[in-house]
């Protein structure tokens, strides 16, 4: 089962490689991993998307907790939560495709953030499946490149991961 694990870790050199090393050493999946400092500059927040049986997920959270730099973590998928990912897409936009692509971007509530004679660069945020759907839909024209940020997430309601 797919899980989103949010982690607060010490904002120190090497912390990221410890997490990445743990996953490769123990053969766990990483679907995506994002990390950036928080409002407290001594802390980084990581969002890690992984998958596995309940037993494997339990091991993953325990092994992560064991890392000395991990301060706290939370399995977002244990409760209601919001997932968001940012995607930047550069597509070919010529002739009829120019209008069609613009319509699609509007339907998906994206924005065109850069334009040339022959291309659009589109910004889109949303849960992963929405971005997937957009990539499928946009294939009416030629995709030049796709950049995805990886998943970020936060719990709904009062539930929060903080110190």
């Amino acid at each position, binding site marked *: 089962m797919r899980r989103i694990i949010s982690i607060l*870790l*010490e904002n120190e*050199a*090497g912390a990221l*490689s*410890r997490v990445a*090393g743990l996953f490769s*050493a123990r053969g766990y999946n990483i679907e995506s991993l994002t990390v950036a400092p928080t409002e407290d500059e001594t802390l980084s927040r990581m969002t890690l998307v992984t998958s596995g049986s309940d*037993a494997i997920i*339990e*091991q993953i959270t*325990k*092994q992560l*907790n*064991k890392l*000395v*730099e*991990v*301060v706290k973590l939370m399995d977002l998928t244990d409760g209601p939560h919001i997932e968001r990912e940012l995607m930047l897409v550069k597509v070919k936009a010529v002739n009829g495709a120019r209008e069609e692509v613009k319509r699609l971007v509007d339907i998906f509530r994206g924005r065109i953030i850069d334009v040339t004679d022959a291309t659009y660069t589109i910004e889109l945020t949303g849960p992963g499946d929405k971005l997937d759907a957009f990539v499928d839909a946009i294939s009416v024209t030629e995709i030049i490149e796709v950049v995805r940020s990886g998943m970020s997430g936060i719990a709904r309601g009062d539930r929060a991961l903080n*110190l």
Partner: protein
Amino acid sequence: MELTGADIVIRCLQDEGIEYIFGYPGGAALHIYDALYKQDKVKHILARHEQGASHAADGYARATGQPGVVLVTSGPGVTNTITGIATAYMDSIPMVILSAQVPTHLIGDDAFQEVDAVGVSRPCVKHNFLVKDIRDLASTMKKAFHIANTGRPGPVLVDVPKDITAQTIEYEYPKSVSMRSYAPVIKGHPKQIKRAVELLLNAKRPIIYSGGGVIHAHAHDELTELVRQLGFPCTNTLMGLGAYPSKDPLFIGMLGMHGTYEANMAMHDCDVMLAIGARFDDRVTGELTKFSPHAKIIHIDVDPASIGKNVPVEVPIVGDARTVINDLIRVLKSSSKKPDEAELAKWWKQIHEWQSVNCLAYNRESDVIKPQFVIQKLDEITGGDAFVTSDVGQHQMWAAQYYQFSQPRRWINSGGLGTMGFGLPAAMGVQLAHPDTSVACVTGEASIIMCIQELSTCKQYDLPIKVINLNNRYMGMVRQWQEFFYDRRYSHSYMDALPDFVALAESFGHVGMQIEKPGDVEGALKEAFADRKRLYFMDFITDQTENVYPMIAAGKGHNEMHLSPGLGDEPVERELA
């Protein structure tokens, strides 16, 4: 007064109360070695190879419970310690490795003797640090010792660039450490302890299975009290031997691949299992799908990740073994219910039947020296009271099976990583920690060669270790597997061109002996152990065909043991290539 970084490193060791460090100098470490020279509180033991230094520190830690300290230079200095660090990591041994690094401005330049020490050691340390600012040096040292020695212990590496060791700053060693991200749980959850007691008191076929964690937690007395209070059978893992007295009637031997028949059968048939400080390693469990099919398992461990990792657990208790066992004893005492004596008597009757198989029997009439016989004589002569280190292979299993450990920390071996070459350097650390106690290194002619250079260190520091070389001219355990599972194709397991071990030992300044007849074993051992001053290298020429029994083969369960052919299994045609 301001001190240099090098002086601070040494002052930190002094303030930690470190008596011995084990190391080898080199370019990046020279400031630290200079600081070492100017004081005499911390004694430095010069190994002949950094791997030897790391095993020696490890042996010191295992024998004392205090962290072992290693000091090495950058590059090859630190890469040579990796095997030693991984060995300590697998067996949860507290160790602090100080590695010198090239100066900060050269880091990343592929400088001479540069290696990313934090990177190469990361998978086999509990934690590691690169000190990039002299202001962090003392606090990092404090953290390193704190992390190494608390919770589930383990090795911690501190990498110190050379320029940091030359800079100066006011020295202050922190009195305590507080880390928001590191706080091991010590006390077990009271509700879980209650549930555990209920299960134990309702058990019909209970077993207590304890591992190295009991020794790390200094919980051997508490374990003994608990086992006796309940009257349950107790088995120890390879790492847990000595935590419960071997000669006690409630002890049913080691379990696992080469454990006793009775311990493994009891593990298989038990209905309640209390696992303490053990991690359900594959060499212990055998095939997991066949593991203890009727058991409700209570698992006490200081490392939450060990619980439920390999085997589902009924009652998990995270906490320090000593604290939790004390709580168990207290709750048991206050309970009006007692273990069911009638059921327990039935269970013991069954166990005694299994014991009557006498699974450790071997041919005592042999004309060639049986390795088991040497260990039994060693046990007799030392009264079961020596420190015994070992290397890895058949001799290790025989030492574990036939030496009757009655105290913790006396049995010192590489259980998790299985590091050949561990025994001799580990014995150096043990002998330094316990200068007045006999230290035996049980080894084989293949293992001993892997760190043989340390005989030179033993000479320099007058370490009167007794090396028991069970020389069968084979990598015995490899040969045994090839005999059983590879149709006797003895691929590269024969030790050709072995040295003359007697001459070798003598060339290092020690006493060498070769023993070829069973009748000479006792005399040789007595002579060697009577001499408290010198190292004896005893080269026992043993039976080449001997195998370690009993055995659980790969894919088999605890109830599917192979017994020694002499015990009624199909007779095996015995010949070597």
